């Protein structure tokens, strides 16, 4: 089973890297969105530092959604999804593999971009490690919930509009605890408890999201 999951991940990452324009688009989007925030806020450095943590997380959520819309569509249209359904591999593992590939092609990019954005917003140096840790724990949650949203809207008309409506409310806890980590560091408080909450959310979504995604995919196939 692990071999099959590995095969799926390697195939998806390889295909994603071949369509490097999509991956590049996510990176450009991240930087562009942060720059736009800066233009709208103005040159007030104190204000930039204050909003920086929130901006990083909001932009991370939006970048994740950007790449979700086509997560299952190609597989659905060319009959690949049917074949996965018929294969000896459970759809739950397929959903998990999809979430991991999404994280590898988008989540990692968000993690790499986060320090650059933190620099743009002049966040203090002590923020970098907690920011990195919160992103490492938080972005897999975004991918797991995102795959569920993509599966639920698979085959639906206007899925591009419907999907954010479904998943953005589910992203709110990650956004709250992710930004709390950054602000607690900035104000000299302990942030460990918020990281633990994020770990809890990750475990919860790891247990539930692939299973729910598999159910949604089964509905789409039938």
């Amino acid at each position, binding site marked *: 089973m692990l071999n*099959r999951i590995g095969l799926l991940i390697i195939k998806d990452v390889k295909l994603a890297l071949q369509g490097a324009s999509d991956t590049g688009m996510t990176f450009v989007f991240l930087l562009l969105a942060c720059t736009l925030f800066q233009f709208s806020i103005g040159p007030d450095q104190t204000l930039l530092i204050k909003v920086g943590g929130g901006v990083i997380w909001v932009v991370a959520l939006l970048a994740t959604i950007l790449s979700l819309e086509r997560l299952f569509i190609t597989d659905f249209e060319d009959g690949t999804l049917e074949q996965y359904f018929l294969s000896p591999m459970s759809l739950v593992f397929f959903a998990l593999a999809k979430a991991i590939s999404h994280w590898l092609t988008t989540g990692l990019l968000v993690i790499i971009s986060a320090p650059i954005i933190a620099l743009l917003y002049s966040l203090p140096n002590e923020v970098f490690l907690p920011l990195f840790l919160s992103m490492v724990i938080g972005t897999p949650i975004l991918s797991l919930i995102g795959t569920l949203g993509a599966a639920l809207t698979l085959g639906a008309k206007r899925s591009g509009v419907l999907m954010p409506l479904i998943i953005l409310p589910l992203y709110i806890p990650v956004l709250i605890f992710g930004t709390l980590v950054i602000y607690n560091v900035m104000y000299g408080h302990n942030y460990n408890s918020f990281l633990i909450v994020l770990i809890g959310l990750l475990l919860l979504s790891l247990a539930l999201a692939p299973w729910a995604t598999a159910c949604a995919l089964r509905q789409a196939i039938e």
Partner: protein
Amino acid sequence: MQSLKIKNLECNRNGRSIFTGISFDVTPGRILLLSGKNGSGKTSLLRILAGLMPPKAGSIVWGDKKFTDKRDRELFSPLYIGHSNPVKLGLTVRENLIFWAKIFGHGLNVDAALEQFGIRNHSELPASYLSEGQKRRLTLARLALDQPVSTLPSLWLLDEPAWGLDPEAVKTLSNLAIDHVKNQGMVIISTHGNNLDELLALNSDRYSLTENNC
């Protein structure tokens, strides 16, 4: 000899009845050719048999065992090839075939399979270079890799497999199907009456989905 018995199968899609009262037997060692007009339900019937969708009513029985869900179908390790070609354009022809062989646990004699379908000389090219007919050949090359792992007969469900194929590839396909049933496998093929029907005539039975089934 035991056979796969399909009894009074009914199918509804979006509240519309596609067919009712479908009953036939599939015997190991024989090919069943499904015919019928467009929209008569051939694809839905194959999808039900593959476990891709549930029937509204009816049963699929092997001996004393009733098949109700996908897990039961796995005993027959059904190999379903639908209308579309699950070919990833960014991977090479060989990578595509190896990927499916590993996912399904088939044999890895990929070169021989590609040779059989006349696309071995394209094996290192991205699949995006292939024509539609060649993509169909690549999809069907999986049949040449199928190695049943079950003690029960392996079931092939082929939905208009000859679509887009030239006569040479149709001949290869018919030879594979005949070889499969000679090894006590079962094959169900939906067809619109073409060269493939003629090539399989000696080894096949026929079932027609008519207006009586609607």
